[in-house]
């Protein structure tokens, strides 16, 4: 038995066979996963671009610079610009509150924070109509002051706040829970004020998680369809956000226009995913 001669190590044929079997198993599973993913997720994205550019780049461009579509893009961006800062302030505040203090009702608050994720968009929209709509107590009271809450930008912003408010908080809470409050207490003993402590100690620790949550929230704000469509009133050229515009164009039998508008949203989604995996690669706080 003179196998295993130096210096080249000869692998035992049994071992080679075993490894080959493992490789085949592994390859089969990976292949199935890739095939399914391509079919379920990859092909639909490809289809969006294929349809948008079906009639050429010129037609695509005409569809994009269509005034209604441009307005929808603007309205979508505007909504995000209003919603995101509010969400960030709320997310940081609630995460600070939950992770830095013990108080009665803390667990209940934790549950309520997550609640919007388990409520379907249409139901959320309906709730907003019921409470802030023209026929409701609050709605008619606001009406007396000539303030309309629903079927305009206010309604879109409010309902967007609802569907996206857990994103920032749910990224921050686990992180701030783990890091504890030692560093903040240390800063206080060194003479920092509360604000200075937050600015110089807390914020640097949570900024990536904050960005991460904000990116996810942004994707959802810009893409929200169901909830917004209930409260927007679908007024052409006034309350059509980009996803609603996609539907409008599609229902108007302008499929190419709809897919052109959809490419803008798809691009936002792709950028979101790229940013997400970049942050994840650099700061793996998840999983």
């Amino acid at each position, binding site marked *: 038995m003179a196998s295993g001669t130096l210096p080249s190590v000869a*692998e035992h044929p*049994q071992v*080679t066979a075993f490894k080959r079997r493992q490789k085949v198993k592994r390859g089969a599973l990976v292949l199935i996963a890739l095939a399914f993913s391509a079919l379920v997720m990859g092909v639909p994205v490809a289809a969006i671009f294929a349809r948008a550019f079906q009639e050429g780049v010129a037609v695509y461009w005409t569809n994009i610079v269509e005034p209604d579509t441009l307005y929808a893009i603007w309205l979508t961006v505007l909504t995000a610009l209003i919603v995101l800062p509010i969400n960030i302030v709320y997310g940081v505040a609630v995460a600070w509150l939950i992770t830095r203090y013990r108080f009665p009702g803390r667990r209940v608050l934790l549950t309520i924070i997550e609640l919007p994720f388990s409520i379907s968009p249409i139901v959320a929209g309906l709730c907003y109509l019921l409470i802030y709509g023209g026929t409701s107590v609050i709605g008619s009271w606001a009406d007396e002051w000539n303030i309309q809450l629903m079927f305009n930008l206010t309604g879109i912003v409010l309902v967007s706040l609802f569907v996206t408010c857990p994103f920032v908080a749910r990224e921050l809470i686990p992180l701030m829970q783990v890091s504890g409050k030692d560093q903040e207490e240390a800063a206080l003993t060194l003479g920092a004020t509360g604000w200075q402590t937050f600015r110089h100690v807390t914020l640097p620790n949570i900024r990536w998680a904050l960005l991460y949550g904000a990116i996810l929230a942004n994707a959802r704000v810009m893409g929200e369809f169901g909830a917004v469509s209930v409260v927007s009133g679908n007024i052409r050229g006034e309350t059509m956000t980009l996803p609603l515009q996609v539907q409008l164009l599609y229902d108007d039998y302008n499929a190419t226009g709809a897919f052109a508008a959809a490419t803008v949203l798809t691009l936002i989604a792709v950028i979101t995913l790229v940013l997400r995996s970049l942050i994840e690669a650099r700061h793996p706080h998840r999983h």
Partner: protein
Amino acid sequence: MALHIEDITKFYGTNQVLDQVNLSMQDGEFIALLGPSGSGKTSLLRIIAGLQFADGGRLSFDGEDITGVDARLRRFGMVFQSYALFEHMSVVDNVAFGLKMRPRANRPNKGEISDRVRKLLDMAEISELGERFPSQLSGGQRQRVALTRALAIEPRLLLLDEPFSALDTKVRKGLRGALRDLQKKVGIGAILVTHDQEEAFEIADRIAIMADGKIQQFDTPNNLLRSPATPFVSEFLEGMGSYHAAGAGI
């Protein structure tokens, strides 16, 4: 000749962890692989178990070439350093696992399995723990369960990877004797991986001292102390002389 290790070589990338290791053990013998961390002893044990494959060399057991045989077909009972108990199963189910996994043709029926498990628990003196879950056991109890589970498959060889390292000193001393007794009672060979000289000297019939991926010397405790083969061995066993002189060795 039970287990025969021949020219086993293993690389992790370009880093050679085992360099043409040769070792033969007798039937029913208890041997220890003793060495500092990074000496390759755990890699060697995992290769014997079939959890890793060597890059070169061969393994045979009772004349059968097992170099590339799947771990599940080797029937070598292994006790892991972490014990690797199945946390979602009771002690009884942990011990019965190996029997239940057998192909239908030679799987004992339910009654036989539970009889066998009960006998094993009795033998290991943990019969009162049968219905508990691993999370409800002490360290010493967990170790006994892990050992019993390994013995349940009627192993041809027992492999022990630092089975005492997670226990405190007091429990450790008591369990050493129990382990040795159990192994003699079952009558199978055993290989113990350890970095603790005292432990190896107390339990093993023969000790292989490992460093840098090689076996420096393989001999009985007495001979190791009397005539260390390399400066490393004598340095590594420094202090054991007095232990031996005190007559605590086997």
